[in-house]
């Protein structure tokens, strides 16, 4: 007798993706798909992909997906959710998309407590454009545009999105996970699930930030990227549920 134990979720298409070796996007895409499968919402889910590497998400998920201009997924998701309130609408955004060019949209979507789910992938660099400093690049971190390391006087501080949003009354659930080891992956999935369940229960704005690997942008091997996130990045971006009301 043969039984399946771990197989690819139905909400992921039978297609190979083009992300770099060890890129965390693949894992996060799968976690979203697993949650969509488990909640049995594939036929009413609409995803909004960002500008950045994850723009290609529309090719990989097996449900309706649109792209949005850079940083605008929360506004596009608002436009979808307001006219189709019984559908499940989520945005998938990177750190450049959400925390730099799209700060106005994310803050106001949160403040209106739009009943949407936001998946925020924080890998501390602009991956698609070859590894420039992101709003979440930590102090001292070397990138293409901070060759001497990020400096406070020049580049300011890395933006803590969850903590920033936590003071907004409209945010109902904020959690920060990572996809650096099996335990973190399982925990992150539980956060994502909660953020979707909140939407189903009409609770309002939920966001899950996910510390993820961009080996190409970080100029590290996949395994080194993980070690760096676990040893350095989590000191500045602590993991866990930040707000749940």
């Amino acid at each position, binding site marked *: 007798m043969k039984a399946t134990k771990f197989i690819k979720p139905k909400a992921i298409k039978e297609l190979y993706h083009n992300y770099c070796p060890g890129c965390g996007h693949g894992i996060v895409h799968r976690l979203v798909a697993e949650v969509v499968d488990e909640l049995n919402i594939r036929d009413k889910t609409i995803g909004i992909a960002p500008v950045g590497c994850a723009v290609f998400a*529309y090719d990989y998920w097996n*449900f309706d997906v*649109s*792209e*949005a*201009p850079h940083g605008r997924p929360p506004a596009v998701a*608002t*436009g979808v959710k307001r006219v*189709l309130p019984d559908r499940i609408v989520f945005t998938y955004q990177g750190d450049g998309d959400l925390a730099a060019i799209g700060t106005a949209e994310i803050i*106001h979507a949160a403040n209106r407590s739009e009943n949407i789910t936001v998946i925020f992938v924080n890998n501390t660099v602009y991956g698609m454009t070859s590894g420039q400093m992101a709003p979440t690049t930590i102090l001292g971190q070397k990138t293409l545009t901070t060759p001497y390391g990020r400096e406070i006087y020049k580049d300011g501080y890395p933006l803590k999105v969850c903590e920033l949003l936590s003071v907004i009354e409209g945010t109902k659930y904020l959690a920060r996970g990572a996809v650096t080891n099996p335990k973190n992956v399982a925990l992150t999935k539980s956060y994502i699930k909660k953020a979707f369940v909140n939407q189903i229960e009409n609770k309002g704005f939920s966001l899950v930030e996910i510390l993820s690997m961009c080996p190409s942008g970080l100029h590290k091997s996949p395994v080194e990227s993980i070690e760096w996130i676990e040893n350095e990045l989590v000191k500045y971006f602590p993991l866990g549920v930040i707000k749940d009301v």
Partner: protein
Amino acid sequence: MKKILQGNIALCEGAIEGGLDAYYAYPITPQNEISAYFAEVLPKLDKIFLQVESEVAAINMVFGSALTGKRAMTTSSSPGISLMQEGISYLCACELPCVIVNVMRGGPGLGNISGSQQDYFQSTRGGGHGDYYTIVLAPFSVKEIYEFAKKSFLLAEKYRNPVLIIYDGYLGQMMEVFDTETQEGKLEIKLEKDIDKSWILDGAKNRPPRKIRSLLMAEGELEKFNLKLKEKYDIIKENEVRVEFYYVDDAEVCLVGYGMSARVCLEVVNNLREKAIKIGLIRPITLFPFPYKEIFEISKKVKKFLVVEMNLGQMLEDVRIATNGNAEIFFYGRAGGSLVSADEIINKIKEIIN
């Protein structure tokens, strides 16, 4: 039913008649009556009204609602429309129908809050990045604002392309009596087939998943899409040109104006015709598609054209293209939110004739 309405309110009533589902906007003068009206009325009709954080957000919310096949609209004035250009480029690239209204004010920069026609280039040349056009309607009366607002969703859906309605702040604030029942029929939309909604995103229930996107990275894919868009614009140019003529057949000088400046021109024409001076008027109603062919035909007979605009010469270039050297082209314009007056136009005509 006879009504006395302000232009901006006629727009609201027309849009509601036309099946508006959702409206998103950011405050800006001179079009604030629109948001105030919708804020009160749309919730009672179970439709969406949202005042949002910026014009950028507004146009992207229109994008979101348009993805689902709903009838979405935003309104703004010149500086706000500039902010929306990125979104409009994406809407055209994703072939999403929607209606955008520009109640134009003086520019550049913050300019002022008086009515103007200084956004002609921005409106008719796409406005943002890439090779695309929006369908541009230029009403010249409160009744036309009402009718165009009512018909524009259908026009947008027929071609899966945004429709831009532009008029100046003066027309937006002006009140006129009109009958909502009688149709002037200037913007009848002919449908050869039912509106196609097989592309909308509403959840992949009993159908394969769909995606809507504008990133076309494969070799030759984008050029193929650009050519597909061009084919669409060519059909629009063939089918949707709207233009009105007043006394052009025997005209010695033909005025060309749209929107508010056409109203003043019409007064001039009526005034001078009473004095047996042979003046005509061409009034483009669609600015994209522009009535190039129609104006070209007239330029075979009429040898002097006077283009009148509330800017310093933008449609002027299209009239030059249309007449293709057949006629002498003159221009009279006022900028910075100043109105053209009938007397000023008459003086200019006298200069041309003598």
